[in-house]
């Protein structure tokens, strides 16, 4: 009896802790959304709050009217990187993982080692930066936003474990039927590894969407700023909102009295940045648990 009572206590405790942790993860997002919907002057007077103060879409209207062109361009750059970058990284990673999973081949363990070693030893930022900008000319061009992320070792191992989970008999019988390596790979293995491919595709897509490391390091041309870098620059430099970038002055002339919502504008921009992630997320989330469970890192 005593034990059962304690067990119940443990389960209730688990519920409570998980609910609390989930709230800690959730509340910050509610804060940002309500800040973006608040009246800027109210925020200046009373501070941020969980429930929007004087609900208004003024900040969004201001952003789209004065910075619309800039935002659209940045969105274009980001979407380009997400689409092209994800496809590129998938092609490189999945093929590498397939070969590394092929245990008949001695070379497969070499591939795994070569990838693994980069996880424990790295040359660091400085040589990487010099090589990338000076020698590979990945500087101020669209290539710079995805080429350096061709292969993510974590995703590669996830994918390799996926391929390892596919019964060998399938490819062996195909071999006996006269199928070549490419045929086995493209028409048998890739369709079988779909769940794994979708999982790492989502990982790649989200990391491209969120990345501002590459753009920070390799992009100085304003015309090539992706959304994240734009947000970063608006954070660090509020004058980015009020001047420059075109549009703001024209917008100011059109209105008798323009209030620049300095506090809420960042919040609105943040919401615009995470909006698409929230939209894809319910669909994507199913794959993360399933994908990681099947391909879980086993070294």
């Amino acid at each position, binding site marked *: 009896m005593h034990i059962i009572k*304690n*067990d119940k206590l*443990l*389960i209730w405790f*688990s519920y409570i*802790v*998980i609910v609390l*942790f*989930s709230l800690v*993860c959730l509340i910050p*997002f509610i*804060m*940002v959304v309500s*800040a973006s919907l608040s009246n800027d002057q109210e925020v200046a007077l*009373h*501070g*941020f*709050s*969980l429930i929007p103060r004087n609900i208004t879409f003024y900040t969004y209207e201001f952003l789209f009217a004065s910075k619309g062109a800039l935002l659209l361009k940045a969105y274009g750059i980001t979407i380009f990187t997400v689409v092209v970058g994800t496809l590129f990284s998938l092609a*490189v990673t999945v*093929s*590498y993982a397939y*070969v*590394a999973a092929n245990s008949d*081949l001695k*070379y497969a363990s070499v591939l795994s080692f*070569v*990838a693994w070693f*980069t996880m*424990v*030893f790295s*040359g660091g*930022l*400085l*040589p*990487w930066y*010099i*090589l990338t900008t*000076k*020698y*590979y000319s990945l500087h101020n061009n669209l290539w710079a936003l995805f080429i350096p992320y*061709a*292969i993510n070792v974590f995703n590669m191992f996830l994918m390799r474990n996926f391929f390892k989970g596919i019964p060998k008999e399938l490819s062996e019988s195909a071999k006996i039927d006269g199928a070549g*390596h490419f045929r086995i*790979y493209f028409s048998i293995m890739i369709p079988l590894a779909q769940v794994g491919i979708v999982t790492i595709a989502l990982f790649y897509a*989200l990391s491209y969407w*969120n990345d*501002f*490391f590459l753009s*920070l390091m390799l992009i100085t041309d304003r015309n090539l700023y992706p959304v*994240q870098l734009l947000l*970063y620059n608006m*954070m*660090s430099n509020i004058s980015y909102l009020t001047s420059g970038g075109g549009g703001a002055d024209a917008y100011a002339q059109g209105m008798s009295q323009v209030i620049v919502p300095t506090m809420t504008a960042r919040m609105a921009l943040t919401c615009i940045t995470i909006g698409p*992630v929230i939209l894809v*997320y319910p669909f994507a*989330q199913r794959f*993360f648990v399933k994908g990681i469970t099947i391909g*879980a*890192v086993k070294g």
Partner: protein
Amino acid sequence: MNNIRVDNMKTKKKWSKSIKENWPLYVLSLPGLIALLLFSYLPMAGLYIVFERYTYQGGLFGSEFVGLKNFEFFFSNMDNAIRATRNTIVVNFFNIILITVVAVTMAVMMNEIRSKWFKKITQSVMFFPHFISWVVVGTIAITFLDEKKGIVNGTITSLGLDPIAWYSNPWLWWPLLIFFSIWKAAGFNSIIYFAAITGFDPSYYEAATVDGASKWQQVTKITVPLLMPTITILFLLSVGGILAGDITQILGLTNLNPMLLETTDNITTFVYRTAIQNGQFESASAVQLYQSLVGFILVMFSNWVVKRYDEEYALF
């Protein structure tokens, strides 16, 4: 001698035979190999920069060779480099430990919960912070920590206490950086442990229940010991990165705010500030070398410790 030569011939033959039969596989792995070479292995070779006076014209392998001179410069100006090293180690040390503790706790607790919809909803919420960038976390932090308008100071002052100077007191930032890292990573890392737990043989638990073990005993005597290999592997992999500071975290959260550099300047931001922003390559390159070397030595060392403790848990 002769034997060795014969062996060599044999392996050579094997390789060429393997290439003839499996060339499509070699071709498939080539793009990935090239990418790793360009963006991971050549930068390792690029550490040669520590022995030269780097100039743009000379480049990585053609600048004047100066031997250990950069280290002299480094030791004469080491205050900032040491500060950066200290900050990186403090923050990463607590990150590695606390993220693991929180993630394992969440996974173990999640395993006790039967309600499917509850699991789904809370997991979705807990993973989400992993999928936003540090810039976004930075703006979120403002709504809480802004000295005048943030909700934290708002609450504190309404209780009649003095507001806290979040963005000008550097000593608040070790706990803050660690907190934000846990917030962002722990929920997502818990999937890996949760996945491992769901793979455990249920007969262990059935037997334990029959023997009258409580849930708590099952957790401490079955779940946690069975999780140890996964925890150890992930721990070993993260030890190598203990000197790798997260630059996007610092930029996103503090924007390299000079008032906070005392505790937020890590090795990576230090290299970024001195070499990439200001063009002073001497001390940055020296830091870069020891960052890479010490990280490597740490992995080897911790792997050796783990191996002595239990052969099976080691990485290699």
